């Protein structure tokens, strides 16, 4: 029987208990407590798990299930302790930190907002500035390889300048507008070239509806240029600030 333990995060829980869902490798998930705090664990078969989509989804799934009933301090993917004694040690050494973080996050949720630009909208913008897209298309079909490259480069530059313009004009406004309703906010690296904003917000539970309303208003306002992706509540990955002692 494997001794290593995969750590998903930490919750307030005074007893050892098993959860109804499974984690990485289909292993049972359970809470391992020290006083009134517990680590959420499952048996780890290996010393390191690859960040495959399957494993990442298993990790996220556990956190989201826990979140239904507990506030959780989520760990990043891949944290494994040698055995339960090491986990107990972790809980002891970081007890005060964990209590402090949980207190800070109580009654709050994390919501994520991503904003991406819409391809067709950029095409329309290019056409409205008098650069006929049909002309570009023709060039691609009729021309030599070098001319095709040049045309692609030209189009690429046009797309980039429009996207940068929209970023300047709209993204700060959107972010500021949402910050107004949030207790805290974070910016993350946008993923891929279509993303203009990758943001997270820590919002009081009783302000969730106001926040929803604001996101919908903004999405409608910019609906012919920008696409909004809105998720949550999610585990507060972006607002947990712990330097684990003893790992």
């Amino acid at each position, binding site marked *: 029987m494997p001794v290593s333990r995969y750590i998903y995060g930490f919750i307030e829980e005074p007893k050892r208990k098993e959860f109804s869902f499974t984690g990485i490798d289909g292993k049972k998930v359970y809470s391992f407590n020290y006083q009134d705090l517990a680590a959420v664990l499952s048996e780890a078969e290996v010393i390191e798990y690859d*960040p*495959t989509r399957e494993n990442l989804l298993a990790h996220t799934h556990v956190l989201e299930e826990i979140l239904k009933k507990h506030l959780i301090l989520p760990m990043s993917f891949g944290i494994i302790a040698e055995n339960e004694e090491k986990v107990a040690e972790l809980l002891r050494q970081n007890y005060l930190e964990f209590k402090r973080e949980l207190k800070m996050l109580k009654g709050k949720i994390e919501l994520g907002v991503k904003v991406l630009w819409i*391809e067709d909208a*950029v*095409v329309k913008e290019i056409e409205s500035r008098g650069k006929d897209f049909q002309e570009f298309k023709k060039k691609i079909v009729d021309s030599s390889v070098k001319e095709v490259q040049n045309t*692609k480069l030209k*189009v*690429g530059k046009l797309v980039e300048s429009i996207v940068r313009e929209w970023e300047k004009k709209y993204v700060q406004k959107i972010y500021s507008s949402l910050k107004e309703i949030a207790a805290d906010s974070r910016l993350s690296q946008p993923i891929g*070239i*279509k993303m203009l904003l990758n943001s997270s917000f820590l919002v009081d539970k009783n302000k969730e509806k106001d926040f929803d309303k604001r996101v919908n208003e903004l999405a409608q306002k910019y609906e012919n240029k920008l696409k909004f992706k809105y998720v949550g509540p999610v585990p507060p990955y972006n607002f947990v600030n712990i330097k684990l002692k003893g790992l």
Partner: protein
Amino acid sequence: MAFIIDDLLLMPFNLAKKILEGIKNEVDKERLVTKEGVMEKLKEFQLLLDEGKISEKDYNQIEKNLIQRLKEIKKTEE
């Protein structure tokens, strides 16, 4: 209609083809020299998969190659 933009958007996918072909120079040029760089690329491809822009089969192969790259980087750091 927006096939030219599609082409630009498929740039990460074209990179994927190169990874599949194992061209080392391209890999290094595209910031796949750090763990963070590889994880970023992985996230990009996951997004493309979620949006239906690449197939599950292609994604799985790309993921395999990127994780292999990740292991290589970790080895050089030890």
